């Protein structure tokens, strides 16, 4: 799975989770008993209320996911269709189920993914700087993108890349 696809999927899930939360909040406003925990003290009644809230959340997430799958129109076909994110294609009910995780959860996952991308970017920058420093020590010209500017510079970098460990063995092994 490409990193960009993963990032896009997380963004879609975050948006769907936020939409689902708003949907549950609206339903809770229309039916206050659904979100009023104090009035559902009995264990059995609260369990039923929780199930109802989760059902409402899943229904909202499913419709929202169908909107994504149907390019803005939650058709019946889209309800059982696929949500396409880059090279990924996930069933709409599965996306709805994931979106029920809540926006806070997906926000944290996105932050984690962004941190991983930052680490990878930092490592690439460090490698590029190290290569540039080595090239400068060797008197090799590098282009803007960090690649050797010409054939001779590329060959010069190749020759100085690894110190041989033996005078004779290196002659046999060096490529």
């Amino acid at each position, binding site marked *: 799975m490409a990193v960009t696809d993963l990032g896009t999927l997380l963004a879609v899930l975050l948006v769907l989770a936020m939409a689902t939360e708003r949907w549950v909040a609206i339903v809770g406003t229309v039916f206050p008993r659904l979100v009023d925990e104090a009035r559902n003290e009995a264990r059995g009644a609260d369990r039923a209320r929780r199930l109802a809230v989760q059902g409402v959340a899943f229904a909202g997430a499913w419709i929202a996911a169908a909107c994504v799958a149907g390019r803005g129109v939650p058709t019946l076909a889209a309800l059982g269709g696929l949500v396409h994110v880059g090279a990924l294609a996930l069933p709409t009910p599965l996306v709805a189920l994931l979106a029920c995780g809540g926006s806070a959860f997906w926000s944290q996952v996105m932050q984690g993914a962004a941190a991983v991308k930052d680490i990878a970017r930092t490592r690439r920058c460090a490698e590029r700087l190290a290569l540039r420093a080595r090239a400068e020590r*060797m*008197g090799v010209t590098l282009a803007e993108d960090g690649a050797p500017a010409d*054939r*001779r510079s590329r*060959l*010069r970098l190749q*020759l*100085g890349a690894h*110190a*041989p*460990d*033996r*005078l*004779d063995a*290196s*002659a*046999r092994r*060096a*490529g």
Partner: protein
Amino acid sequence: MSIAEVTVSRTGGPVSVRVVERRRPQGVVTVVWRFEGVSGCEGIVGEISREIPEVPLGAPGTVDGKGFLVDGFVVPLVDRPPAPYQVVVTVVQGGREVHQAVPPEHGTGTIGPDEIRFRYPFLVRVA
């Protein structure tokens, strides 16, 4: 690959190595590595190109027992059908040639559009 042994004089002056491609217009890109002996690489002594064909190795006292590896590429400078080339490695002391050889490994042949890598290891002894 056999390692050549080059004998230099203690009083003959500084030692250097020269690498040229005899049948120009091919070019060379070469680095010279120094070793404690046959092992223990100490680093790059210098680099040789068509414009700078010679690298100083040091005074006789400092190069006695040291190994040197001439590692380089012959680079075709013009696009044309395979052309003959020959690389010659020369060890010079005080302006006088004390050793000359064509690297046995790809030191001579024909070159097409791709570069060819050659190597020549040698040990220096002071007589």
